[in-house]
């Protein structure tokens, strides 16, 4: 299986108007193929910076990132964004002017990996899997927030990426929809196993979804704690009250809360 991500000594310094802001400060992280790595940390701790560096939207100041042994980022250079590292964005990026089916099939069709018919067939299967059958011709604007997220995750999976980069995809959803979406995601990943890099503010979400939870320090971003989660998969929401789950939560929540307080003092500004 593909999708081994290795981050070595990642440093990112933003320099707007010569006031140096260190977003990442020597971060090392390895994600095994097929592993679900959930990253938790307060706002502005450099989570998104890290994701952007992997995705190819931004560069590192020093350090390197490799994907399956190939360098995708080194100081001031990065491989252009591509379908091997698909991102699901915080506020969603379905093209509102195209139908659900077009959105979902555009990736493989544009990359000429599938014909339109084949892509449509595969898309229908995946959409049905997340309970979105019969919405092919709708526009994203006609869907609810949760439905849009499901379509967007299907769109990402259609590209068969080596690593799936999820940038707080459920942030804008209400708590109940969020819990349903989390279950859909775990089920989908059982069917289509992928390496996942998942960013969140929500510790419970991170533990529920992750094979490993990485807690970052508030700015500058460093690794504070890495906790493996060995709960059986696919998980149901009943796991949230199990003793194992609560034990993991207990080990992490102190650190997370402390970092959040530190971030609060700076003001919770996000970096680009």
């Amino acid at each position, binding site marked *: 299986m593909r999708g081994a991500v290795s981050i070595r000594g990642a440093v990112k310094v933003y320099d707007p108007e010569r006031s140096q802001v260190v977003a990442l400060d020597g971060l090392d992280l390895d994600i095994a193929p097929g592993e679900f790595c959930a990253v938790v940390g307060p706002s502005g701790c450099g989570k998104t910076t890290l994701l952007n560096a992997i995705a190819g939207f931004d560069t590192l100041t020093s350090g390197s990132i490799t994907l399956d042994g190939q360098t995708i980022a080194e100081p001031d250079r990065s491989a252009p964004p591509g379908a091997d590292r698909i991102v699901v964005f915080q506020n969603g990026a379905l093209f509102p002017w195209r139908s659900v089916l077009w959105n979902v099939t555009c990736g493989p069709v544009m990359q000429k990996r599938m014909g339109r018919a084949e892509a449509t067939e595969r898309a229908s299967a995946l959409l049905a899997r997340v309970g979105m059958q019969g919405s092919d011709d709708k526009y994203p*604007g006609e869907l609810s927030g949760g439905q849009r997220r499901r379509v967007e995750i299907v769109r990402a999976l259609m590209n068969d990426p080596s690593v799936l980069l999820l940038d707080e995809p459920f942030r804008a959803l209400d708590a109940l929809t969020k819990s349903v979406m989390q279950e859909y995601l775990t089920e989908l990943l059982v069917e289509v196993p992928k390496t996942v890099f998942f960013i969140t503010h929500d510790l419970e979400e991170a533990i529920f979804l992750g094979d490993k939870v990485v807690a970052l320090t508030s700015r500058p971003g460093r690794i504070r704690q890495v906790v493996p989660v060995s709960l059986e998969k696919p998980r149901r929401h009943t796991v949230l009250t199990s003793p194992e789950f609560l034990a993991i939560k207990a080990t992490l929540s102190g650190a997370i809360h402390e970092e959040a307080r530190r971030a609060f003092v700076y003001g919770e500004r996000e970096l680009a």
Partner: protein
Amino acid sequence: MSAAPATSVNARQTVSAGHSRLVALVQGLLGLAAFFLLWWLLVDVYGVWRFRQLPKLTASVREWLSPNPTYGISLYTQEYYKHLFSSIKRVAIAFCLAVSLGILVGVLSGWSRWFRAVVFPLLEVARPIPILAWIPLVLLLAPGRETAVITLTFLAAFFITTLNTMLGIKSIDEVYFRAARSLGFSEWAILRHVVVPGALPYIFVGLQIAMAACWFSLVASEIVSGTAGLGYKIWEAYYYVQFETMTIMMVTLGICGYLSSSLVRRVGNWLMRWRGSMLKGMAR
């Protein structure tokens, strides 16, 4: 933009919508009736103050509908349609040219920073000059009067379309470009599937204004330099004290302006069907 309160408001609105629409219609007719009554009383009947000199309502309507108009312009005469169609032709040519060229320049400017850096300052230098102030220069430079009128009509729409296209491209959320790049879109596909549809809402706002500007600029150019057309005829009618003809031509201009801008709106709504679905979800 929350969905829940919007539905309850909508439900209440639909219950009373039929009733309030009827009321609005009646009151609207009342308003129009008052307007025409006032015109009739002030001008036709009493001739108060300088209103006496304005074109009379009854005479204008009679003239417009007469098969044998006093001044040669009515719904039944060839000359009326000659002027009407020469104006429509000019607007159509100028508008189409301005739209195609304006969108092209706008998209290229949003596309390449070199193109933008070269073209944008020139546009910015030329733009503060009112379109109508271009009239003498264009008259000097254009080979014929017809070309001059079309050029002036074109200029009015061109600046607006170009700037709105540029604004439209700037308004597109960066995230769509990122998504497109991740999904392996070619540059051409990004242009076709992200840039153009994303900028369309702004482009169409621009086109609506551009259409109005076209008629505006057309009338001014026809007045000072035309040989035919609605604007030309308005001025000629003024000159020969044929005030009823003036009214007819003004009303005709109003109808043309209204129809053309509603055509642009319709085409826009059709091209942006995806927005209809989005607006439905918004509180309004």
